[in-house]
């Protein structure tokens, strides 16, 4: 089990990660939290080809601009790793 901590933008499509931290102003942190993007939550990368990316979490899919996504730090889950609790 490797604990690779990276920015959200470096997750490839299909990969999953657990959010470790969101940096940025209260506006960004608060808005993302109200959409379910906050520390401890598991996300899956759906679309990541330049431009904004799309992640899914708990039944929500969200488009996030690259600039904002760079401020989200995740722990990459390696394939097959049984994801632990998501919150």
């Amino acid at each position, binding site marked *: 089990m490797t604990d690779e901590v990276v920015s959200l933008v470096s997750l490839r499509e299909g990969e999953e990660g657990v959010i470790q931290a969101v940096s940025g102003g209260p506006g960004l942190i608060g808005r993302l939290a109200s959409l379910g993007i906050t520390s401890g939550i598991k996300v899956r990368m759906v679309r990541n080809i330049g431009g904004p990316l799309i992640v899914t979490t708990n039944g929500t899919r969200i488009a*996030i601009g690259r600039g904002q996504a760079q401020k989200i730090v995740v722990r990459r889950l390696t394939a097959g790793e049984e994801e632990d609790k998501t919150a």
Partner: protein
Amino acid sequence: MTADGELLVALAGQPNVGKSTVFNILTGLSQHVGNWPGKTVEKKEGYYSIDGRRIRIVDLPGSYSLTAYSEEEKIARDFIINERPNAIVLIANASAVERSLYLLAEFLLLNVPVVVALNMMDVAEQQGVRIEVRMLEKYLGVPVVPMVASKNKGIKELVSAILHISEKGDNFNPSLADVAEDHRDIFAELAALLEPYIDPPYLIRWTITKIMEGDPDVTERMAQSVPADVWRRTQAVLREHEDSLLAVVRGRYDWIEGAVRSATSKFKRGQILFTDRLDDILTRPSLGIPILFGVLAVVFAITYGLGLPLQQVLESLMRVLVTWIEPLLGQSPWVRGIVVDGLVGGAGTVLTFLPVLFFFFTAMAFLEDVGYMARAAFVMDRFMHFIGLHGKSFLPFCLGFGCNVPAVMGARILESGRIRLLTIFLTPFVPCTAKLAVVTLIAAAIFGKDAFLISWLLIAGNILVLGFTGMIVSKLFFTPMHMPFIMELPFYHKPNPRTIGIVVWKRIIAFLRKAGSIIVLFSVLLWLLSHIPGGDIETSILGSVGRFLEPVGRPMGLDWKMIVALLSGIAARENAIAALGVLYGVGEEGIRVILASVMGHATALSFLVMLMLFVPCVATLVVMKQEMGSWRWFLLSFAFMLFLSYAAGIVAYRGALMIGI
């Protein structure tokens, strides 16, 4: 609260959870329903009566949280705080309970009785999420009503829950989310400092939480009302604990986690959803962008392919109608003129566009309802950056093709003030249906078989102008800045004919109302002005004003009637058709025949170019001013459009003459 036993109930919830669907069922009204976040941007009211009790129901704009990041969220929050409704119905999305509960956690702090309407149970089911409603109720301490609003399920139960809770009054004791454990003492410290200065309607717990969250409004207000030394100490505490916001968020998610653990289970997992498959295609730039243009092309092909032939049929029907009614009108040239040239030639010609509008509205409502709009906005994001905007602005622009007024209002979903301003500034360059009607009609009359091409070029040109203007204005007036782009992509769903029907119906009615009021009045007025005193256009009041204006139109090859037509478009864009109809007296022969004989190609072209770029109708101007909130920007945009349309008109005219069109 309202007097005489009337109840005030607010429908709140995150965007796109079905608030307006529930509102429409209860009140019988028809608020805009579609499948993308951010349709309702103003609060709307209606009534529902049961057992002799009247309930005033308010449909609030969707808000992800109660920290007001965008205009609509501010509206929702201020309403709850200032109006203190008897009950709030928090509409939650059963297929995304976590984030619906996040908003609930905030609402519960406001100490107003809340009923949770757990909507979209069908979607949750499809995704294999099972929710034990009783368990959830017990955990939250709040009544929970499962619903499928789009299928009318659960409404009765919701109403009785509302009645029940608003009678219980103060007996409402929900479980509340605390701040995370390690910050409880900070919370207590802040509370001790600020408590004496928090006055109703603001609540202590809510205010402290908002301060910890760094809510700009609340912080600002407290800074004003708290003595300087207390405020300094407050700020010192906050500075020392910069992670207060995270503690609040963490506290909420602990509470949510508890609810989810006690009440939901996943019985199926790992299924590939339909939405995933479609998104794989539609959000991939290499496919998504061509598909978007394809989709738009199909929309216009349907609109014009089916709508225009019907428009022609209506036009000939109208001529038949004239031959029937003419003998009944007696001898007076005035009565005949008002009816045949004024009403029929003016307002009647406008009405023949009904089929075109019908097909356009239906196609757009379909795209909205299946959930495509948010994807279109997503793939457009990269292009929108060139013009200083981002993908979300594409949503109001799309509304703009229908009518610019809701588009300007719709810009409220944009969180950043400058993006909103620029979006509003550019909206008039989105050709609305009324503008398109004028263009199609004139192009068809003048350019014959090239009409389609000319119309397309004009529309494309209009959109290019939008692009260039955006580029220039954002370069000139705004410093480059990170533009936060966060947008939810809803699930696709099967088109619901009822929802689509309601949307189309509402827009058609709005058009008919406009045609039956402003445009009828205007047509008659214009006819009178162009025939008083002598009964002859050239010597009429309008004729003399017109000749005075004639020099203005000369560089573009326009005669005064065309200038009047252009100006009359300010009252309502369709008036341009009505005005041409009235001034050239097309009542009997139909506008196509007459126009062809009075307008040369170059003139028609410059007229159309000017019309595309000219200042929008009054309705749009009024909301632009209101939403821009600044005279400076409004006047700048007004002057810009005047100048641009004038200059472009001249260029089009001279250019057309030069290449001999």
